[in-house]
C-alpha cells in the first residue's frame, strides 16, 4: 500500500546520520523531526537563524520572537544558537549543514528539482529553497510520486520552472525510495505491497529497478 505522509517521513528519518546538522523544509519534511530515533544526535537548522530547533512550545508559552522558517512558534534546546540570516545562508552555502530534506513538485532523472512556481498560479516565492538546493551536500526529497491527475512527478525533465539543477540525490515517495545517478531514477526500495509494475507505471523518467527490489522496512 502506498505510504502515508507520516510513513514517508518515518522512512526518511532512517536516513539521518548520528551527529549531523539537518535542515527540514515545510510539509512532509517537518514531520521527519517526529521520527528521529532517540539515540541519534541531530541538530535542526532553521534558515531564518537558529541551530538547535526544539519542539513546539507548551500552550501559553509561545514566544513571538522565536519562530522557525515556517513561521511556527518553536523552542530552543540546550546548546542552541541564534544568528542572522546572512550567517544562516553562509553556513548553508559553505556546506556546514549535512542534510537538507525538502518537498518537490517535480524531480527529473538528472536531479533537477522544481518546487516553487506554477505558471499561471499565484507565485509565493522560493524562500530559501534555491539557496539550499544550490549548496547542500546531501538532499533528500520527500514528495508524492503521482499527482492528483495520476501523472508521474518523476520526469525525464521538469516541466515547471526549476528551483535547482542536478542537485537531488535521493527521493522518498509514497511508492518507493530512489537514488538519482547516471541520469536515472534507481529504485532501491519499494513501499510494502507496492509492485514493481506499479512503480514503473508511476515513473515517467528513466527508471532502473530490479524485479527483486526489496520492500522497505521501518
Amino acid at each position: 500500500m502506498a505510504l502515508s505522509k507520516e510513513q514517508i517521513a518515518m522512512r526518511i528519518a532512517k536516513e539521518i546520520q548520528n551527529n549531523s546538522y539537518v535542515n527540514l523544509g515545510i510539509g512532509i519534511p517537518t514531520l521527519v523531526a517526529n521520527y528521529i530515533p532517540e539515540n541519534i544526535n541531530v541538530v535542526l537548522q532553521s534558515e531564518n537563524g537558529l541551530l538547535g530547533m526544539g519542539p513546539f512550545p507548551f500552550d501559553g508559552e509561545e514566544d513571538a520572537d522565536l519562530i522557525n522558517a515556517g513561521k511556527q512558534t518553536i523552542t530552543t534546546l540546550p546548546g542552541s544558537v541564534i544568528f542572522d540570516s546572512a550567517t544562516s545562508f553562509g553556513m548553508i552555502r559553505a556546506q556546514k549543514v549535512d542534510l537538507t530534506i525538502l518537498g518537490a513538485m517535480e524531480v527529473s532523472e538528472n536531479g533537477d528539482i522544481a518546487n516553487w512556481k506554477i505558471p499561471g498560479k499565484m507565485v509565493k516565492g522560493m524562500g530559501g529553497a534555491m539557496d539550499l538546493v544550490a549548496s547542500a551536500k546531501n538532499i533528500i526529497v520527500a514528495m508524492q510520486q503521482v499527482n492528483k491527475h495520476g501523472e508521474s512527478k518523476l520526469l525525464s525533465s521538469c516541466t515547471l520552472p526549476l528551483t535547482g539543477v542536478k542537485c537531488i540525490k535521493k527521493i522518498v515517495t509514497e511508492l518507493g525510495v530512489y537514488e538519482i545517478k547516471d541520469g536515472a531514477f534507481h529504485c532501491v526500495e519499494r513501499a510494502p505491497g507496492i509492485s514493481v509494475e506499479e512503480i514503473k507505471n508511476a515513473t515517467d523518467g528513466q527508471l532502473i529497478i530490479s524485479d527483486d527490489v526489496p520492500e522497505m522496512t521501518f
Partner: protein
Amino acid sequence: MIDKTVKNVQEACDGIQDGMTIMLGGFGLCGIPENAIAELVRKNVKNLTCISNNAGVDDFGLGLLLQKKQIKKMIASYVGENAEFERQLLSGELEVELIPQGTLATRCMAAGYGMPAIFTPAGVGTEVAEGKEIRNFNGKDYLLEYAFDSDFAIVKAWKGDTAGNLIFRSTARNFNPMMAMAGKITIAEVEELVPAGELDPDQIHTPGIFVHRIFQGEKYEKRIEQRTVRTKN
C-alpha cells in the same frame, strides 16, 4: 559617543519620500519595525520600493502599506499569506521581484560591508539567473549578484543604546543586522532604549556606527503568524 536618539517615530521617519527604496527588517511578522510601518502609513508616502523578506499579512506588517497602495514594487523571497498582495499583483498594480532568501540576505550584507557584488550558486540554471553573469569557480557555477542600494533601512531591535548600538532577541534578529548595516540612513526602533554604557560592548549585535536614528517604540503587538503549541500531558 554620538547621540543617535530621535524623540519619536515621526522624527525617525523624517525625509522618507515618495518613490524611495526602503529596506525593512523582519521574517514573517517576527522582528518587524511595527512603529515605523505605522508611521509610513500615517505619512502616506507612495510608490515605495520595499526590500523585505516577506510582505506581511493582510492587516499587519507590510500588509498595512499594501492596503493603502503605498508600495509600487516589492523585493522579497516569499510573499504568501496575503490576499490583497495577490489581488494587486494579478491586477498589475504591484510589481514583484522574487529572489532567493540567502541572496536577499547576502545582498544586504554586501552593501553593509562595502562590497559591490557577491557570488552565490543560488538560482543557477533557473529563471533567477536570466540576464545575470555566471562565473565558474573550482568547477561550480555562481551568479554575480549586486549589493542593494536603498535610501533608508528600518530595523527593529530588542534593546538599543543612545549611541545606536543594537541587541536583537531570538529569531527576531533575522534580516535586521544586515539591513541595519546596509541603509544609507538606518532607522532603528527598539523595545528598550538605554543610555550608552549600559550594554556590554562584547554583546552588541549591530555597532552604532551603522545606525543614524534610534527611538523606543511606543508599543509592540508582536503578532504570531503560526501559533503552534503542544499540550502538557
